[in-house]
């Protein structure tokens, strides 16, 4: 992804030199034409066309924001209810992610989801220990993490 981005910026600068116009508008024009060129030459790169990765990053950001608001609502409910009805606990979650930055983003996401935060990452980077506010709906939380977050993060790093 980084290579294609750099190539695109390089093509934009080439466009600026070719048209002898050094304004931001010329840069954006050149960037657009470079994007078209990279799209037609996408077969020659090892990774996929990088616009898909950009879209995946934006989608991950959206998930972050939505989960933050949802988790605040659930914390609201627990704090403001007249009696404390909760069963906290710690559960383990196996993760398929391997790189360090992926696990960091996953644990940040889990910390911002309703009623869970990461207590510890095991030494071999395979298990996350998560403290949950309500252990009853752990299975649901596990499924959510597996299906939405891990998938979105994998989509970014693909």
């Amino acid at each position, binding site marked *: 992804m980084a290579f294609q981005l750099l190539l695109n910026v390089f093509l934009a600068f080439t466009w600026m030199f070719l048209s002898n116009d050094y304004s931001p508008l010329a840069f954006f024009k050149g960037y657009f034409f470079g994007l078209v060129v990279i799209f037609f030459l996408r077969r020659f790169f090892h990774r996929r066309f990088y616009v898909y990765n950009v879209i995946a990053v934006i989608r991950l950001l959206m998930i972050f924001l939505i989960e933050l608001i949802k988790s605040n609502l659930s914390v609201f409910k627990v704090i403001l209810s007249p009696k*404390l009805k909760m069963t906290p606990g710690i559960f383990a979650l196996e993760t398929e992610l391997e790189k360090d930055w992926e696990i960091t983003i996953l644990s940040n996401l889990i910390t911002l989801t309703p009623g869970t935060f990461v207590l510890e990452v095991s030494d071999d980077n395979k298990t996350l220990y998560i403290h949950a506010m309500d252990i009853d709906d752990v299975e649901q939380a596990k499924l959510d993490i597996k299906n939405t977050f891990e998938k979105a993060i994998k989509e970014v790093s693909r």
Partner: protein
Amino acid sequence: MTEISNFIIGFFILLGSILSLVAAIGVVRLPDVYTRNHAASKSATLGVIFILFGLFLYYLLTEHQVNSRVLLGIVFVFITAPVAGHLISRAAYNIGVPLWKGSVQDDLKKARSKKKLMR
């Protein structure tokens, strides 16, 4: 125009302060370190983000200037607050702060004791 923008700015700042208030109530009410951490790390994060966003809108709509430092502040709070919550609760667990008596499950303790047996 200014009426509407004033309303939006007031809405964000009021919502942010209410969230911070609820976080403070949660820190007082909840029984142990870990559940308090839930309240502190989530509600306080969103509260600060809403207040800063209201401030950004105020500068944009009434003073007509883009204050990029406020935007950077939002990003920094968004990235660092969950990590701070994680580190505090991990440190608490490592020096042996007990869970609340209503807690039902502790997988990390099991994993730790298994590791000790294997050594």
